[in-house]
C-alpha cells in the first residue's frame, strides 16, 4: 500500500487539540447536593475502575480521534498497489474500428464492453495516476492527455464513438511508444479485438474478440439499360458475404431514396459470397440502397449504397487555329475534358459541348446550347466592335470572374474595343473602353476578350491560368465529386466552383461540415461513417447537390478470423482482472460515516 499525499499528517495536530478540548470540557461544575452519601455508594459503579470502563467514559473523545485519524488517512489517498506495482502514468487505447461494433454479448458491443472495462480500470487507479486515453482505428486520436480527474476520464470514455473505419493499431503503438519513452514506468492497456503488434512496447492487450455471426452487404452498383422504346431502367448488382459456418437465406431490400423498390431472397452458402441482381428497376432518384433483412452481430455492414451520378466531366470544345497557351491553361482544370478543332463547320454537328471557345473566329450559326467564350472575335453574332487600339496597357477590373487577378495590368500590341451589351459586365478595361465583358445572354453565358493572346504578354503571367480557371468556373457548374465510391477513412477533394459558396457536406448521421471552395482546402477527411454523403454548393444562386458513397470496409472488418491469442494477450471472457490496484479512499469514507454514526448513537445513549 502506498499513499499519494503526506501533507495531511500535519493535521495530526488536531488530536491533542481534541484531547485538550475534552479536558477543558470536562472541568467539573460545582454541584452542591444535600448529601453525597448515595453518590458515594454508587461511585464505584459509575466511575472508571477498569480499563475498558475508562474507555467507555471517554468513548466520544476516542471516536472523534478515530474519525479525525480516518479523515487524515483518507486525505492521504491511500492506495493498494496491484502486485506491488503502482503506475503514475497510464495510457488506455480504445480500438474504435468498425469491427468493435460487433456484438460482444446480448447487452453490449465490443466497444461498449471496452469502454466499461476502461471505466472500471480507471476507478481502480490511484488518485494521482495520470491517464491518457487514445482511440485507435486507422489513425490514433488523443481523447484525453495526462488527466487525473476520474469523473472527467469516465465522461470522456463514455463519449467515445465507434467508427466504420479499418483498424490499424500500428499508429497507436507508435504514439504510445513515444509517450512511454518519457516515463520511467507506465502502464499501457490496449482494448481491442484484433492482435496488436507491440514490438518493443510493454503493454497489456485486452482482446475482446468473441465468436460472432455476420452477413455483410459488400457493395452494390448499377447500370442503365434501355428498352426497345428507349425507356431507361436500372440493373442493380450487389454482393453479400456470409461469415457464418452455415448457409443463410436472407431477404435483400432495395430502396430508392428511402422508398422500398424491390425485395429479393438470396441464399448465401457458408463462408462464401453471393451476387444478386435486381433488374428493370424503375428509379430516377439519387440514392439506391440495398439492405440485408437478417439481424446479425454487426449491423453497420448490412447496407450498401449507390449514388446516381448527376454530372460528370464538363466537355469543352476549343475552336482555334493554334493557341497552345489557352489549351494548356484549360487542360489544367481537372474537371474539364477538352476537345479541339479548327473547323467552324464541325460546331454543332454531331456532339454537344458544355462550353465552346471560339478563338479568333465566329461561326455563322451558333450551337443551340452551351456557353461561349469569344477570343478576339470579329464583329458579328451580337458583338459590336467600337474601335481598335494598339500598344495599350489593359487592366482587369474587379468582377466575379477576376477573383485573385483584379487590378492586374498587362500589355497588348493590338486589341478591339466593344460596345458592352446591357446584360454584360466589363472586366477588361483599356482605360478608354471595354476590351472584355461577360454576362448571361438569355440562357447562355457569354464572355468576350478583345485581343489575341499571341499579341499580349498575359499568357506568360501567373495570372493567366487563374483567369482561365475563373472563366471555366463561371461558364460551367462542374461536378464536385470525382469518384462514385470511397472507402471509410478516405480523403476526398471536392472540385468546388471557386466562384461558388462554401461547400457543405452532410454525412450519413446528418452532421454538416462546411469547407471553403478553394481547391486546395477542400479536402474532406471526416469519412469515418459508411453511408451516403451529400455535398452541395451554391453557384450563381443555383444550388448544386451531389451524392457520393462511402463504403464499409467489409474485407478488413466484417469477417475476422478468431485466432487472437498471443502470449501477452487474453481473449474475451477470460480476462476479468484488468485492475490498477485499489483506491482505499471510498472505503475509509464509509468507515468515517460509520464512526460518526456510532458517535451519534453513543451521544444519544449517554444523554
Amino acid at each position, binding site marked *: 500500500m502506498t499513499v499519494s499525499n503526506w501533507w495531511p499528517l500535519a493535521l495530526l495536530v488536531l488530536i491533542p487539540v481534541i484531547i485538550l478540548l475534552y479536558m477543558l470540557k470536562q472541568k*467539573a461544575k460545582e454541584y452542591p447536593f*444535600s448529601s453525597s452519601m448515595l453518590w458515594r455508594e454508587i461511585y464505584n*459503579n*459509575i466511575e472508571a475502575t477498569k480499563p475498558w470502563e475508562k474507555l467507555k467514559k471517554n468513548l466520544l473523545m476516542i471516536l472523534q480521534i478515530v474519525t479525525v485519524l480516518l479523515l487524515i488517512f483518507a486525505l492521504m489517498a491511500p492506495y493498494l498497489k496491484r502486485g506491488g506495482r503502482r503506475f503514475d502514468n497510464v495510457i488506455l487505447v480504445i480500438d474504435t474500428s468498425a469491427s468493435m461494433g460487433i456484438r460482444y454479448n446480448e447487452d453490449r458491443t465490443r466497444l461498449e464492453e471496452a469502454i466499461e472495462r476502461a471505466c472500471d480500470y480507471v476507478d481502480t487507479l490511484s488518485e494521482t495516476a495520470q491517464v491518457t486515453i487514445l482511440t485507435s482505428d486507422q489513425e490514433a486520436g488523443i481523447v484525453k492527455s495526462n488527466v487525473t480527474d476520474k469523473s472527467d476520464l469516465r465522461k470522456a470514455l463514455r463519449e467515445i464513438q465507434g467508427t466504420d473505419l479499418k483498424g490499424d493499431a500500428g499508429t497507436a503503438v507508435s504514439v504510445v511508444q513515444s509517450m512511454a519513452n518519457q516515463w520511467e514506468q507506465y502502464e499501457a492497456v490496449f482494448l481491442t479485438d484484433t492482435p496488436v503488434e507491440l514490438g518493443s512496447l510493454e503493454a497489456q492487450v485486452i482482446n475482446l474478440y468473441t465468436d460472432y455471426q455476420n452477413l455483410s452487404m459488400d457493395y452494390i452498383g448499377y447500370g442503365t439499360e434501355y428498352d426497345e422504346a428507349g425507356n431507361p431502367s436500372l440493373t442493380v448488382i450487389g454482393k453479400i458475404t456470409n461469415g457464418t459456418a452455415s448457409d443463410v437465406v436472407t431477404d435483400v431490400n432495395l430502396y430508392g431514396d428511402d422508398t422500398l423498390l424491390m425485395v429479393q431472397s438470396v441464399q448465401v452458402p457458408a463462408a462464401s459470397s453471393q451476387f444478386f441482381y435486381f433488374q428493370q428497376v424503375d428509379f430516377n432518384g439519387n440514392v439506391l440502397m440495398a439492405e440485408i433483412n437478417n439481424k446479425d452481430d454487426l449491423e453497420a455492414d448490412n447496407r450498401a449504397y449507390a449514388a446516381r451520378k448527376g454530372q460528370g466531366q464538363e466537355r469543352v470544345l476549343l475552336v482555334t487555329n493554334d493557341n497552345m497557351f489557352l489549351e494548356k491553361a484549360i487542360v489544367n482544370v481537372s474537371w474539364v475534358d477538352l476537345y479541339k478543332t479548327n473547323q467552324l463547320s464541325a460546331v454543332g454537328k454531331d456532339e454537344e459541348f458544355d462550353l465552346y471557345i471560339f478563338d479568333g473566329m465566329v461561326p455563322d450559326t451558333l450551337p443551340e446550347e452551351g456557353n461561349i467564350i469569344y477570343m478576339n472575335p470579329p464583329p458579328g453574332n451580337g458583338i459590336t466592335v467600337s474601335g481598335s487600339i494598339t500598344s495599350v496597357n489593359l487592366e482587369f477590373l474587379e468582377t466575379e470572374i477576376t477573383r485573385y487577378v483584379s487590378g492586374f495590368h498587362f500589355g497588348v500590341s493590338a486589341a478591339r474595343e466593344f460596345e458592352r451589351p446591357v446584360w454584360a459586365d466589363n472586366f477588361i478595361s483599356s482605360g478608354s473602353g471595354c476590351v472584355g465583358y461577360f454576362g448571361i445572354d438569355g440562357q447562355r453565358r457569354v464572355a468576350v476578350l478583345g485581343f489575341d493572346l499571341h499579341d499580349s504578354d498575359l499568357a506568360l503571367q501567373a495570372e493567366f491560368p487563374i483567369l482561365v480557371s475563373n472563366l471555366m468556373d463561371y461558364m460551367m457548374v462542374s461536378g464536385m465529386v470525382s469518384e462514385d465510391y470511397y472507402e471509410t477513412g478516405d480523403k476526398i477533394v471536392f472540385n468546388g466552383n471557386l466562384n461558388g459558396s462554401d461547400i457543405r457536406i452532410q454525412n450519413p448521421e446528418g452532421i454538416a461540415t462546411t469547407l471553403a471552395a478553394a481547391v486546395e482546402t477542400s479536402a474532406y477527411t471526416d469519412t469515418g461513417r459508411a453511408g451516403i454523403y451529400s455535398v452541395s454548393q451554391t453557384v450563381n444562386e443555383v444550388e448544386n447537390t451531389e451524392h457520393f458513397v462511402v463504403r464499409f470496409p467489409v474485407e478488413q472488418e466484417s469477417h475476422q478470423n478468431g485466432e487472437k491469442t498471443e502470449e501477452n494477450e487474453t481473449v474475451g471472457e477470460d480476462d476479468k482482472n484488468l485492475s490498477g490496484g485499489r483506491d482505499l479512499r471510498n472505503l475509509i469514507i464509509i468507515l468515517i460515516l460509520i464512526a460518526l454514526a456510532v458517535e451519534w448513537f453513543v451521544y444519544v445513549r449517554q444523554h
Partner: protein
Amino acid sequence: MSEKLFDQDFFTKLNSLAIAMNTRMTHGIGGGRKSNAKGTSVEFSDYREYIPGDDIRRIDWGAYGRLDKLYIKRFMEEKEGIFQIFIDTSNSMNYGEPKKARTALQLAGALAYLVLNNLDRVYISEMQENTLTQGKGRAGKQAFSQIMRELEAMEFNGGTNLNQAIQARQYQGSGISIVISDFLDENGVEEAVKYLRYKKQQVILIQVLARQEVEIEGDGMVNLLDMETGEEVRLSLNRAAIEQYKRALTALQERLRTLARRYELTYIQMLADEPLEKFLYDHVCNQGIIIHK
C-alpha cells in the same frame, strides 16, 4: 427560620384533624386518653385489698360496712398523650426548592398543633450532629405560639447522626415518637428505632426529600459538594449515573420500609414541594395517625 411558616387558613384546616393514638399512655399528668395506669378518673375499674400506704381516700367504706374488710376502689386513670417530634436540623435539610427544612418545620408545627388540640403533650427536639436539643414539653393550645416561635428559631447546620441523637432522649413512659428527617445518614437509623421501641414508643418515620433529590437534573462532569461534610465527589453526571443514583435512593427507601415492617413502625415519604394539608389528609390519616373528627 425567619419566614412565616403558617397562615390562618392552614390553622383552620388543622382544626378539623385529630390525632388518634393506638397505644395507651402510662405516664404524664392527666389528659384526654385512656391509660393502663389505674388512677383517679371517674371510670371504675375494680377493687383490691387495702395495703398500708394506700391513699385512704380511696377506701370503699360501703364495702367495709358490708364485708368488714378494707378495699381500695380502682379507677381507669385518663392520661395525656406524650408526643416526641424529632426534627433533623442538619445542613442537608437546607437543600431543595422549597427547602426540606421549611417543609419539615411546617410538618412539625402542624403535628404539634394537632397534638395540642387533642389535649396532649408534645416535645419538639432538634437533632444536629450527634446531639439532641430537647425542647420543653408543651400542652394546651396556648402553648402553640411558643412552639411556633421555637420552630421558627431553629437553625439547620452541621451533619447528622440520628442514632446517637435519638438515644440521647430519656423516656419516662410510652408515647409516640415522630422522626422527621431525610434519613441521608450513613449510620442508618436502626439503632435509634430499636431504642425507641425499647422505650415503648410508637415510631413514625417521615422522610422529607426535595424533588431535586428524586429527579436529578444536570449534565457533564460535576463536582458534587456534600452540604454537610463539604466532601467533594467528582463524577460524570450522565444518564447512567443518574439511573444508578435513583436505584440507590430506592434501595435506601426500601431499607427504611423493611425496618418499618420489622419493628412495626410507620414510614412515610414526603416531597418537600408537596402541599402539607394534602399530605396530612392523604398519608397521615391513611396511616391511622390522624383521624377526621
